[in-house]
């Protein structure tokens, strides 16, 4: 069925059954339900299958380099704070190649939504381990199974006191939708780590596996308490999904621009002032 946010006449490069389709559907529905104007919305991505999402949705897009969506997003939001900015990509893109930017974007706290398709495998390069692959996961490169400790984006984000930290399972669609909506409503950086199966290259972490190994965070959880959020983040049997932590902080663009939300393209420098400053030399 055609959604108003569909781009028309597009050849989708995802495999049949891929979790990406549901994330795309989810994103379109959330944007529509929150009445976010696609003409004021930009999706920024890097490289990979998840990073192709912007090509399939009728908003502005900036598809750049592997791992580099976050710095682009932060600067874009700075150049025009009136835009809704979404950074989207996979676990390799955002946590591997772009790991450093992940840390520092959280520190900046730009008002963006950061959606990470986390399928615990490198799909586009045909099945190597990703930073979130579980120990023992065998691949053509990790022939004896993954030795490295999996990257926990939630606990890392919490350690940096990210403003909004969440994880969802795309198999639990209604829950995922409610969390993603909250992420959009949050002012500041919002991480939504999305469990999503790669049906071709990850035969371990399947729809079924995610269903059996995740559990919604109970309502009693105080999402303003950083310490209990961190405790939750370290649980893994089952893996909690939902909003771990939320706190309000001033944003990157507020810190640099104050109340000035004008698009930079509409501004110009006062040449008389420049002349005066030069004159002081």
């Amino acid at each position, binding site marked *: 069925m055609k959604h108003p946010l569909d781009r028309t006449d597009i050849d989708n490069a995802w495999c049949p059954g891929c979790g990406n389709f549901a994330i795309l559907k989810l994103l379109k529905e959330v944007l529509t339900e929150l009445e976010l104007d696609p003409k004021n919305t930009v999706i920024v991505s890097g490289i990979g299958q998840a990073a192709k999402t912007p090509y399939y949705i009728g908003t502005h897009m*900036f598809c750049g380099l592997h791992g580099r969506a976050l710095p682009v*997003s932060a*600067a874009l939001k700075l150049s025009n704070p009136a835009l809704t900015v979404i950074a989207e990509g996979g676990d390799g893109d955002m946590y591997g190649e772009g790991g450093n930017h992940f840390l520092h974007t959280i520190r900046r706290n730009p008002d963006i939504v950061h959606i990470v398709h986390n399928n615990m495998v490198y799909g586009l390069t045909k099945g190597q381990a990703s930073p979130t692959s579980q120990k023992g996961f065998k691949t053509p490169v990790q022939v004896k199974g993954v030795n490295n400790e999996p990257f926990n984006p939630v606990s890392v984000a919490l350690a940096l006191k990210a403003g909004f930290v969440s994880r969802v399972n795309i198999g639990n669609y209604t829950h995922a939708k409610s969390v993603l909506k909250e992420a959009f409503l949050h002012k500041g950086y919002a991480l939504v780590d999305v469990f999503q199966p790669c049906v071709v290259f990850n035969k371990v972490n399947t729809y079924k596996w995610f269903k059996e190994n995740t559990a919604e965070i109970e309502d009693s959880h105080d999402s303003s308490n950083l310490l209990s959020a961190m405790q939750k983040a370290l649980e893994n049997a089952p893996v909690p999904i939902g909003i771990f932590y939320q706190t309000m902080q001033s944003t990157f663009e507020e810190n640099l621009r104050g109340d000035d939300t004008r698009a930079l393209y509409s501004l110009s420098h006062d040449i008389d002032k420049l002349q005066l400053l030069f004159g002081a030399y």
Partner: protein
Amino acid sequence: MNETKVPFEATISDQAVSLPEKREEELPGRDSISILIGGAAGTGIMTLEKILTGAFKRSGYFVFSTKEYMSRVRGGSNTTLLRIADAPVNAPCWYTDIFIALDTDALSHAHERLTDHTIVLADENITHEEIEITKIPVSRALKELGGRHYANSYVTGVIFGIFGLDEAVLTESMEALFDEEEIHKNKAAMHQGVVYGQSLKDLPFPKLPGQLQQKTNSMHLMDGSSASGFGFLAGGCNMITAYPMSPSTGVLNFMASMSEHFTLLVEQSEDEIASLNMVLGGWFGGARAMTSTSGGGFALMSEAVSLSGMSETPAVIYLAQRPGPATGLPTRSEQGDLNLAIYSGHGYFGRIVLAPGDLQECIDFGYLAFELADRYQMPVITLSDQYLADSIGMLKRVDFSAYVQRRYILPTDALYERYKFTENGITPRGVPGLGEGLVVSTSDEHDERGQITESSHMRDKMVKKRKKKISLAILEAHSPKVMGEGSIAVIGWGSTKGVITEVLRELADPRLFQVHFVWVHPLDPRHLEMLKETKTNIVIENNVTGEFSDILKKHDIDIHHRILQADGFAFFTDLLKEKLYNLVKEQK
């Protein structure tokens, strides 16, 4: 949100901008003296440089100063060279008329730069077996004043005393730098220095050239970093994202200071990769963004340089060169990154590389970098180097209203296609939120809408579209500046401009003339025709292989001689003069 307008809206069909006309005014006289001051880092030698250059300018002289310093925070042995003249001077000399050593190390460090005529001044406690020293009681005076950090003020006083210059002028220069609390003791130290300096006036000091108060009053004194910064501001820069790296940090600092006066967003990024990606995000959103870096940092940016080219997102990169590689001499000078600037990145895409050679050109081409990046939607790299960035010189008043302001972004309509084919290869650029259309930017090969494609036909057409842009840009390339005429061309690029000018003037050989390139890539073959008619082409470059010479050779220009230097220093007039003289004396 759609009601906002783009100021200075322009399109590619508008004629290329021309830089404001400047008439080179010849000034009488050619006298100059040089003063070299050596001391450890962290002892205020840079403050001393600022006070003295300001004071000599206020006294009616043309001044130039340049420093060489070690890559350390405190200690080591650094020098600042001042040249005081009755005509514009824009180059350092190796041998010095006066040398002031603030510590013993400075004597050994600068030993080679002394001649039989150099007068060496140093503290009473300092001795040297081979160097004759005129003692000054610096440490004694400082003991009375209660602090080593007044040494610089004392020394500036000595210099002014020696030449019998007006103490009030020195005070003025000093007041511009110190706050209330500091100024009192510094003035006292300076005064003691002046008195002592006056007592030395019978020594055979070189004579100061004639004063030109009226000329110098109307001039401005600044370093290359500040001049570049003024150029970028004239070009409308309103965002800079950079990782600090000598010697590019001067521009970052300057822009940060200017963010107090303009809407100019400054972010220190986590690395250079982020820096340039942020620049691209900024331009995509409608900002005029830039980054500043040096060779090692630029190396990290190369993937994003490709992205700028491929996605046709403008970018301005200020690359201040230093001797590399990995990581070479962090605080010294070289023109060793020309090839890096021209060839970095993967795949083919157009770019423009500019290399200003003096303060005025830093402003002109800083401005032009933004104009060109926006006009051609490609990366523009402005090359500087430690020598140009850190040297302080003088320039005439610049009329900033003379720089035509333009912004090549247009409101989009609903059918807008970001990569639509046009005759000249340039698609009008939209930005998100301005107009009805959707704006895309993409690193994968794409169709006119910006959708991924692997069609060989589309790939071919898009590659040609991007190539066409550079053919167009070449037509607007600035020709090299030709100064004088003759049969032997002395060719340089970037920061060697001043030293070559002075050497040619000194040699006064009617066969020699100067050819100075600022627009170093891509070259317009029409501008090179003249070099096919010269009898001899000599290229002078501050690198080990002659990177620019090789580029000229690729354009079928015969290069007969190369004068190359890659020892961490910029060229010195006296040493280069000798080299060039020896080279051309046998020539017919």
